[in-house]
């Protein structure tokens, strides 16, 4: 199960820094109502360097089996940047590692609700597919795999 952490690490670290821009690109309100966005973008970008460091720490903990400590670090990161889809994705993968299948699914959903980044969406669908397989919900697992392929 630890293998799940490694492939997503690179994506997550990239995403931790890139995600704010992706979110703001999708903002219809910001465009329509001419709200200044430079400020909020820079806030997110600066904060994300902190988040990248926390993701790194959480990964180290998860890889060495300290999953509870990893969860604590992720929760700390989420208090600083609750809309960081990369953090939610890592949270989901750790719950998968802990065999908490239902939470893994819900957290991957949460991550999907906060991003339109294809790599991250694909990773989340992959996580969901694995978790559904474990809970014996094969139809949902198949559907998730299909969505993973569509987004990758």
């Amino acid at each position: 199960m630890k293998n799940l952490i490694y492939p997503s690490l690179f994506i997550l670290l990239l995403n931790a820094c890139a995600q704010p821009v992706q979110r703001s690109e999708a903002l219809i309100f910001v465009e329509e109502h001419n709200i200044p966005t430079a400020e909020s973008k820079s806030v997110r970008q600066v904060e994300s360097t902190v988040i990248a460091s926390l993701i790194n720490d959480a990964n180290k903990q998860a890889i060495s089996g300290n999953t509870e400590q990893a969860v604590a670090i992720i929760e700390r990161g989420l208090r600083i940047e609750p809309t960081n889809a990369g953090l939610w994705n890592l949270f989901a993968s750790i719950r998968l590692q802990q065999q908490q299948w239902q939470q893994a699914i819900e957290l991957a959903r949460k991550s999907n609700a906060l991003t339109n980044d294809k790599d991250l969406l694909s990773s989340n669908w992959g996580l969901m597919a694995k978790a559904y397989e474990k809970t014996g919900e094969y139809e949902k697992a198949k559907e998730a795999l299909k969505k993973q392929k569509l987004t990758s």
Partner: protein
Amino acid sequence: MAKKKKPSSKKKKSATKRRLWWFNRWTIQLGLILICLFFSYCLWLDFNIRSEFEGKRWSVPARVYSQPFEIYLGQHLDQSSLIKQLRMLNYKQVRFLSSSGQFSVSEHKVNIYLREFLYADGTESEKKIGVSFKQQRISHLINLSNNEPIQITRLEPVLIGKVFPFHDEDRVLVETDQIPQTLIDALIAIEDRRFFEHHGVDPMGILRSTYMNLIRGKITQGGSTLTQQLIKNMFLSRERTLQRKLNEMLMALMLDHHYSKENILAAYVNEVFLGQNGVKAIHGFGTAAEFYYGRPLQELNIEQIALLVGMVKGASYYNPRRHVERAFDRRNIVLQSMRDMGFINENQFQTALKRSLQVTAKPDWSSARYPAFIDLVRRHLRRDYQEQDLRNEGLIIHTTLQTDMQDLVEASVKRSMSRLDKRAGFKESTLETAVVIVSHHDGEILALLGDRDPKHNAFNRALDARRPIGSLIKPAVYLAALDNSETYNVLSLLDDSQVSIKQLDGKVWSPQNYSKQSYGKVPLLRAFTRSYNQSTVRLGMSLGLDKVINQLKNLGVEEHIRALPSLLLGSLELSPYQTAQMYQTIASDGLQVPLKTVRAVFDREGNALKRYDLKVKEFIKTETVFLMKYLLSQVVEQGTAKSLKSALPSLMPLAGKTGTTNDLRDTWFAGFGDRLLGIVWVGRDDNKTTKLTGATGAMQVWSDIMKELKPTPLLLLEPENIKWQQSPDLSNPPESCRQKTRYPFIDKNIPLSINCF
């Protein structure tokens, strides 16, 4: 006669001898019995002392902490805010850092010697950090020990309350290895000079104190050793009798025989009475350090420790807050003794003498500082802990409260409520309020107010005031519609003509719009954003009340809901806290997180007993909630809450919903941005009219709060199956019809044409 006398004398002698023999025999027997009794008494005492001392488990109140203050690179924070936070934690400003609990300030920079602390996710050791600021942000963050950059660190949380034992004792346990040497020195110097030499009782000490008292003509020194004082505090009454004194000496000898000096000293340091905080007795130097100086015992300097040790003689008589001069003189006597004994040198003595008492203002640990929040913490903890454990076991409780946010909310509400009273033509304090501020992605309650006066908590309105929620219920009705995406979308036409419904009791219910007008065919978007009642009731009735009730359940309403038509206009009575759970589910994209106040609980040894991890559950489809969030954002953009746009222009866009109940009795506002959710209720305890609406009442309070909190604007990110369709602008037909705008639809149900109604 002499002959006669001899035998009689002999007889007498032998009788005397016999009597003596019998007397001696009885005396010896009595003596032996007494010795036996005494021995038995000693054994009994010994048994009692040992079982009591070894089994001694101090009653320690639970300590409730706020959330810690995070410090990270790039954080939006200015120097003065950080210094304010440090002062709140009683960090001492110095020129050069020498021990934890200190900070120094230079231009655009603050150096901090952080204290060690057991956080909810583990212990962090003390360390020196440097924080540099540029344009109100943290530009550099370094570890001063090795000059390595760091990304993130934190200040320990604020102690926001204690849950006291029933017998009202307050105690902060100090372990043997945590007792500062200065404290031991001061105690030895003033209370018991031969503590490490005697066996529990010190005859030399008694002689010396008697001599000194005779010379001075008054009682300035007591002959009791620290061990005797401990015995007196732990086992005996305060009466001054010879019997008690003898018992005390006997028990002191026994205690000294059985236990090491270190153990006795540690017990003494934790037991000694050092003052009174209201009805709470302050026991031990650990508690006293917090109570008088707001700092851990380990951080106190010589003169501060000297004062606390001086107070052992009479905590009330030498109370430094009430009797400054007395306390000052007593402290100096202790310092003098320390100098005489060679524990401090002349230089240290002279420097300490010149210093003031340095005591802080009396701290408020009685849960009275944030009573509404502490009340909720206790209710949450009662699910997992016995009241007895909460009071006695010294639990360490990490909560979600953000003290700086709570303080801002309190100050803001105070101003707003005075204004609203005036606006409605009421005398001051007629209107009441309750506020819940939530970080909606993780469900953490950051601030809570149950009364317009934050110190009052006779009635915690945030939790216990269940009032009809009025139009705050409408998202449930419209979610039920949007969930049926084949029939309803944001522009579906609804019928806003007059409606009459025959109820179970035979009466006819004919709800009206707030304006008393009917609007005919209206797009769903407009019916929602302008909070039309007639179209909402028609919509709800056509969907079926069961569907609306299902949505309310999905939104986290747990109690029984009666299927009455009036439900559609918010006859359902909920507390602001319950309403916050409803809107958390919407703000957080349909992924519900139970609201929480407690992050983790530790036992007194620092072992984690329970962590309240973040748990998420999807209750409503993301695309349906997206449409609802869009509608709620349009309430602020063009609906009943549009005055927020001019009140908070830099914070737009935000989402929200106004609510008003019959006869303007209750006014509500629920609003959120990208991270923060706020629920405000304004009403009256006598349930009479407020003369205000959701927009002129609760929303004003909400708006004032958000001006202070500056929430991150709402960022709507459409799910993959939501598409935006170009359309005439339906916000204000026919004028707006010439303009174009975009509306969100579920991709498989995009309407082919849109008419501008």
